[in-house]
């Protein structure tokens, strides 16, 4: 439902251990897969506003390591890293992911990414599976400036009907 007002990305929490995101890209699957898996491409888009990506290493094979360093405008850096478990071009990637955050420690989770072809477009689905609800919430929180500790998924329908009801 939220897709109506926000056509792009959906974020849901289907269980206590998961975060699932979906997004459709207007490009063929092979190209989208490349854009996600080659450092020379990733450097062009991955990151957060006002941050740079000085390091992006991807040893794209099962057992291969990946590492990305995000540099904030104040010079501090956050390192994201992990190991590939499955690499099936151009449809599927499974890898571990973790980062160091003074607020939440070094949570690690397993991310499964699928690329599906849909009429010349590509549906991307990323599922992050955490070892506990605490790690999941820590991961969620890390994207925020303050602590949001609990569920905010499956609200989309409700929020839309609320806003319509209020409007």
């Amino acid at each position, binding site marked *: 439902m939220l897709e109506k007002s*926000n056509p792009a990305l959906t974020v849901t929490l289907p269980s206590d251990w998961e975060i699932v995101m979906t997004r459709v890209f207007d*490009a063929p699957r092979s190209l989208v897969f490349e854009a996600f898996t080659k450092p020379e491409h990733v450097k*062009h888009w*991955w*990151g957060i506003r006002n941050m740079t990506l000085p390091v992006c290493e991807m040893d794209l094979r099962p057992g291969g390591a990946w590492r990305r360093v995000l540099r904030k405008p104040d010079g501090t850096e956050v390192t994201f890293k992990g190991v590939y478990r499955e690499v099936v071009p151009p449809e599927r990637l499974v890898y571990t992911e973790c980062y160091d955050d003074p607020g939440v420690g070094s949570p690690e989770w397993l991310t499964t990414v699928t690329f599906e072809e849909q009429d010349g477009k590509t549906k991307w689905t990323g599922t992050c599976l955490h070892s506990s609800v605490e790690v999941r919430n820590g991961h*969620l929180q890390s994207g925020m400036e303050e602590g949001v500790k609990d569920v905010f998924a499956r609200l989309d329908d*409700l929020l839309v009907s609320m806003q319509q*009801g209020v409007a």
Partner: protein
Amino acid sequence: MSPDRLSTTFAALADPTRRAILARLAAGETSVKELAEPFTISPPAITKHLKVLERAGLISRSREAQWRPCRLQAVPLKEVSEWVERYRTLWEQSFSRLDDYLHKLQTKEKKHARKK
């Protein structure tokens, strides 16, 4: 909005029955009896849910009328939706850059194809 208040809101919204109650109230204020009708749980259980929602500031109950109508309070929901939006936006920043980048790559590919 303080994180604690946000946690209270999220905790209140984490229950499907409470979400259904709120969705029902979005259509307008109503009595507890009317609210309970579509649910299989008992009126006392509904009252419990209403108390949680009331504490979270998501609903208010009028003390004027005898039937104490329940009413949706939109402010906390608006705040939650702003937080959801913030998390989404964080990712969407990268993805909209990727949209542009994919578009560029495709344009380049087409040019290449024409040259051949």
